[in-house]
């Protein structure tokens, strides 16, 4: 079995037992990238030289017998909206084609301190706006299960790279489903942590109140290992929350006896593919067989979550993306006449259509005379949605739903219909609106052999409960399988 096919936890053990070196592992990952990247196109920027150097450094430390993190020497890919000092961070936008951050995101410092080896920067929807990675200025990443299909988005590069063995694991970011949806489409495990648990410092903002960095891996254990490293209070992020340190991996247990799982009927209605519905319900039944208690619940405001999400996220985006003006960094239009023309040309030439759409929607909902009817209403709905979850979590431990209503669609299928594209986020956005943790784990395949994801939603900071539930299910279902490329 090739190294790229193994899980992070397996590889961490092999490194610790000195069966392999990080240099060997890193090289094998880059060999794999060389072999399949043409088909998948997951990376925007490769970091091969630095990665190999870092791997050798870690090998020295391992040979000295230093007590290292399980991430030490593990090749990890980073979504291209996470700032990497000295390594360009494009957000898959023309706007930041040559932008090289002079600082590291807090999560990068944490990964580097743990000895992770950075393989490169992964493709995404431009500024994380999209559900298919098709809005990237650079390339269209393909689904490893079917290269005529999208890998999901916006962390499509991250999910595809992990599924295709081009990275052992990856970091993604999730504003409305951007970790969970591609994880579901690519048959890997993705965790969107509680808002405020992982520092956003250095994550290029899309929607500040919803964005959260999280891990994508081949197994629940892999995701638990990374989450243990990246989470925690950061004084550089005013929205991060102080919590006691938890070693999620050490606390993993597969016992679900007595665990109360809620099934919200609103997530199994119109638009949910039959294959998806039956796979998810099967997974729930299997957990019931292990002693979990299944309970139907209702989250009536779910219908409005998508609207609330698009208003809040676009409003914040319109403001967050105003800084790209051709002055301090990034692209500037070549020809212009005066300041305002320079701004307009730079932004019109530097941003793609989806980004422009969201900026305009966001500007519109905040503009004079419309604020109350849109933004304020969306914020009120957000509070209502959040309260519904809080009420339900008084009686149950975990909520189970499909991650996405369907499996991966064809490249170009929804590209020209934003509303259809947005509808694929229906099961995931609510969780960001409520600031809750959620994960997607593979729970089967549809008739075309495309992966289906089970979404597990937990109460705030209940990551351990989520991981345990997912871990229990993974034991029943079996672990990661590499798609045939």
């Amino acid at each position, binding site marked *: 079995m090739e190294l790229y096919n193994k899980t992070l936890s397996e590889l961490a053990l092999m490194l610790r037992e000195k069966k392999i070196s990080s240099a060997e592992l890193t090289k094998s990952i880059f060999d794999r990238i060389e072999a399949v990247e043409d088909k998948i196109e997951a990376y925007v920027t490769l970091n091969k030289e630095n990665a190999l150097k870092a791997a050798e450094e870690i090998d020295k430390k391992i040979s000295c017998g230093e007590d290292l993190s399980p991430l030490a020497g593990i090749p990890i890919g980073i979504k291209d909206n996470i700032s990497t000092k000295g390594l360009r961070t494009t957000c898959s936008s023309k706007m930041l084609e*040559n*932008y*090289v951050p*002079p*600082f590291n995101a807090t999560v990068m410092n944490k990964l580097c301190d743990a000895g992770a080896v950075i393989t490169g920067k992964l493709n995404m929807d431009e500024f994380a706006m999209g559900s298919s990675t098709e809005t990237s200025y650079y390339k269209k990443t393909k689904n490893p299960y079917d290269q005529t299909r999208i890998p999901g988005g916006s962390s499509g590069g991250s999910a595809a790279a992990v599924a295709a063995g081009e990275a052992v694991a990856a970091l993604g970011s999730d504003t409305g489903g951007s970790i969970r949806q591609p994880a579901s489409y690519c048959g890997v495990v993705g965790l969107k942590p509680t808002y405020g648990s992982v520092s956003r410092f250095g994550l290029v903002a899309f929607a500040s109140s919803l964005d959260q960095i999280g891990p994508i891996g081949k197994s629940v254990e892999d995701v638990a290992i990374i989450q243990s490293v990246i989470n925690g209070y950061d*004084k550089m992020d*005013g*929205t991060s929350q*102080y919590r006691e340190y938890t070693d999620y991996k050490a606390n993993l247990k597969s016992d679900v006896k007595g665990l109360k799982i809620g099934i919200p009927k609103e997530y199994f209605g119109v638009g949910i593919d039959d294959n998806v519905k039956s796979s998810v319900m099967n997974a729930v039944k299997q957990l019931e067989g292990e002693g979990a208690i299944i309970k139907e619940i209702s989250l009536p405001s779910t*219908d*409005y979550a*998508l*609207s*609330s999400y*698009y*208003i809040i996220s676009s409003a914040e985006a*319109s403001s967050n993306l*105003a800084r790209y*003006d*051709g*002055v*301090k*960094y*990034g*692209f*500037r239009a070549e020809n*212009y006449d*005066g*300041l*305002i*023309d*320079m*701004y*307009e*040309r730079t*932004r*019109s030439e530097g*941003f793609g259509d989806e980004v*422009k*759409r969201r*900026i*305009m*929607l966001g*500007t*519109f*909902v905040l*503009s004079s005379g419309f604020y109350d009817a*849109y933004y*304020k*209403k*969306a*914020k*009120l*709905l957000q*509070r*209502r949605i959040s309260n519904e979850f809080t009420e339900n979590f008084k009686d149950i431990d975990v909520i189970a739903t499909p991650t996405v209503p369907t499996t991966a669609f064809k490249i170009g299928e929804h590209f020209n219909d*934003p*509303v259809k594209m*947005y509808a694929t986020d229906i099961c995931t956005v609510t969780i960001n609106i409520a600031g809750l943790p959620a994960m997607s784990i593979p729970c089967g395949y549809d008739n075309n052999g495309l992966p289906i994801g089970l979404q597990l939603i937990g109460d705030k900071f209940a990551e351990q409960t989520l991981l345990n539930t997912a871990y229990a299910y993974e034991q029943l279902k079996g672990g990661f399988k590499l798609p045939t490329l």
Partner: protein
Amino acid sequence: MNIDIKHIAKLSRLKIDDDELEKFEADMQNIVEMVERMPNIDEELTIDENNAMKLREDKAVTNKYTREELLSNAPFVKAGCLVVPKTVE
């Protein structure tokens, strides 16, 4: 409802060509229609006292970055400054 795309584009500092205008208008219209299904809520937004943040201690740190490092991504630099088309306001 009619959305004044040109005005919104101007506020957003985006230049929308006439041939793109219609498409953006239609897209926005669709999105706004989706969004307008929201129910009316007769409540007021409040400030959440339980969501308090920790404030930063007033301490300055100097020489964290060199000017060259910070300006290295700028399209145009002159005499240690960023360069923009002449402003009059």
